[in-house]
């Protein structure tokens, strides 16, 4: 695949050319931090960030998404019949997501694109989007991507990988979609691939934080589930949804109907396994009614159930958002290590 050099002087112009055929989004600073926003005409993505507050998962999995619609007007022929809503899946591009967010997309895809069922909302948005990653030359102390199956120059899930090289970007097309985007932007000046390799090695060396995951698969589910450390881990947790909403790999959702007058919509909303409501039965029985059970579910899902189910590593890309945003500093790194080294006989606290 092609590698090109984009002189920063040609950056705005290239994006402007893209804006003709793509709807563009990128990181924008608001309220003191960066998040993804749709870019207005002429607006440039702001690359002066470590990572965005929320991940880029919203592009394929918005926090609230209308799926179906209905009419309750009994004089209408189709009352009480669910209809698909018309959706716009025209070409769009996200410019400037971190490689960890892209890798997360590939993990989440396994949930939404299965042999039996395909979630059309997730997949149509995914197929319509070209993902342009921005390699991470300046990781945070909470980044542990390299030990979570990812890395600052990881390519999985991206269509283009950009690397900031001072007065220019090096852009590597990784897919056909990526090639098309580079052509549409008229970025064609050829670049030296070895520069990127060198920068990649430097960036990876900067990741100071790691987790150990090599033993997780070997552990018996029920041993880990009944491990003695869960109460201690869960004590501080206030059961808010911060970690799950910030996480690029958390995919759980709720389905809700909302009616206004005679018209209504059925929508998908992010949900969180931290909420007791998530699993509450109508009878009042709750299989995960205690805080410890919910905290355990989150980490067991990411670090054990997922590992066993798909054999693709952990359901975590090491972006560190949950660590940075948790109001009470629950740290997945230490929990992962605890799980990885747990032996059933061990009586640890």
């Amino acid at each position, binding site marked *: 695949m092609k590698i090109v050099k984009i002189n920063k002087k040609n950056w705005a112009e290239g994006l402007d050319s893209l804006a003709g055929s793509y709807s563009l989004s990128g990181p924008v600073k608001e309220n003191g931090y960066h998040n993804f926003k749709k870019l207005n005409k002429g607006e440039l993505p702001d690359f002066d960030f470590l990572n965005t507050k929320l991940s880029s998962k919203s592009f394929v999995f918005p926090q609230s998404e209308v*799926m*179906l619609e*209905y009419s*309750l007007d009994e004089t209408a022929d189709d*009352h*009480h*019949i*669910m209809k*698909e809503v018309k959706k716009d899946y025209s070409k769009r591009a996200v410019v400037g997501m971190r490689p960890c967010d892209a890798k997360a997309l590939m993990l989440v895809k396994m*949930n*939404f694109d*299965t042999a*039996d*069922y*395909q*979630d*059309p909302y997730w*997949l*149509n948005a995914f197929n319509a989007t070209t993902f342009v990653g921005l390699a991470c030359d300046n990781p945070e102390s909470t980044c542990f991507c390299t030990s979570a199956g990812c890395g600052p120059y990881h390519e999985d899930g991206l269509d283009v990988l950009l690397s900031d090289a001072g007065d220019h970007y090096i852009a590597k097309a990784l897919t056909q979609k990526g090639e098309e985007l580079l052509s549409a932007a008229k970025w064609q000046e050829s670049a030296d691939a070895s520069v990127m390799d060198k920068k990649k090695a430097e960036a990876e060396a900067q990741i100071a934080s790691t987790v150990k995951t090599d033993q997780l698969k070997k552990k018996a*589910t*029920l041993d880990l*589930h009944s491990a003695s450390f869960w109460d201690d881990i869960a004590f501080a947790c206030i059961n808010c949804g911060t970690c799950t909403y910030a996480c690029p790999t958390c*995919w*759980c*959702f*709720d*389905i*809700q*109907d909302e*009616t206004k007058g005679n018209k*209504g919509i*059925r929508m998908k909303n992010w*949900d969180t*396994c931290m909420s007791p409501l*998530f*699993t*509450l*039965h*109508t*009878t009042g*029985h709750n*299989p*995960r009614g205690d805080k410890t*059970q919910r905290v355990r*579910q989150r980490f*067991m*899902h990411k670090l*054990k*159930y*997922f590992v*066993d*189910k798909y054999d693709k590593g952990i359901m975590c890309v090491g972006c560190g958002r949950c660590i940075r945003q948790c109001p009470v500093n629950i740290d997945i790194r230490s929990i992962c290590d605890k799980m990885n080294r747990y032996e059933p006989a061990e009586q640890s606290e």
Partner: protein
Amino acid sequence: MNNPYLPYPVRIDDIEIATEDKSLRTFKFVFLNEGDEEKFAYKAGQFAELSIPGVGEIPIGIASSPVEKGFVKFTVFKAGKVTSHLHNMKVGDVMGLRGPLGNWYPWDKLEGKNVFIIGGGFAFTTLRSSIKYMLDPANRAKFGGIHMVYGARSPGMILYRDELIEWEKRDDINIHLTIDREAPNWDYHVGLGPNIAEKVGPPGNDDTYAIACGPPIMIKFTLPVLEKLGYAKDHIILSLENRMKCGIGMCGRCNIGRELVCKDGPVFTLEELNLTPKEY
């Protein structure tokens, strides 16, 4: 791409009060669109999402049997938001049906085997579907002996009573009905289901499978009975319930360990369940 969230439109064709306390009603649905019934082809043991626009969806086991054509039936206990609404709906009302969902009782594995069915209370729905399926002239020869114990609080709380009393007269199924306490004009067993199962149940062996479906308390007392009767853990088949939304293994809430009750279940063997956290 098929949209698995889009329900088939159905019309309520009939509503029957299923128990004397009126807490259960059996809804018979017919598909509004030609071809949808074929697309909804199901096996006994599966469930579907009953989908009421503006109210929500509820996963319910399919009570009709694949051998019954032209309709699908669900017997629904009035409990939460959606089921309470459904209980107030009328014949002719239009709503949605999404499915069939989940796995089914292992009909391939059960061929040539004896089947012992233990049901309790209003969890008898998919068991009814299963028995109807096995008793069908086209299928009966595929199975060995069929034994059944079904317990309810009182005669009026027994689901599908007329049908069961008809079946009871047949000689190709061995039916034991029981109620918790004595009642007038009751000619069958009196006593809790698991106790009756212990007395009348066929012994467990390689060629005999038990399918148990009922409230948690019944399951709790039935499992030791089955063990005593000699059933191996991989010959005990159970059907689980958990809170669900999507029904297609995506929304994430119904898991027990790595298994999703909605997609990998709801039917599991005891052997499988013993490998998962008891989060149901």
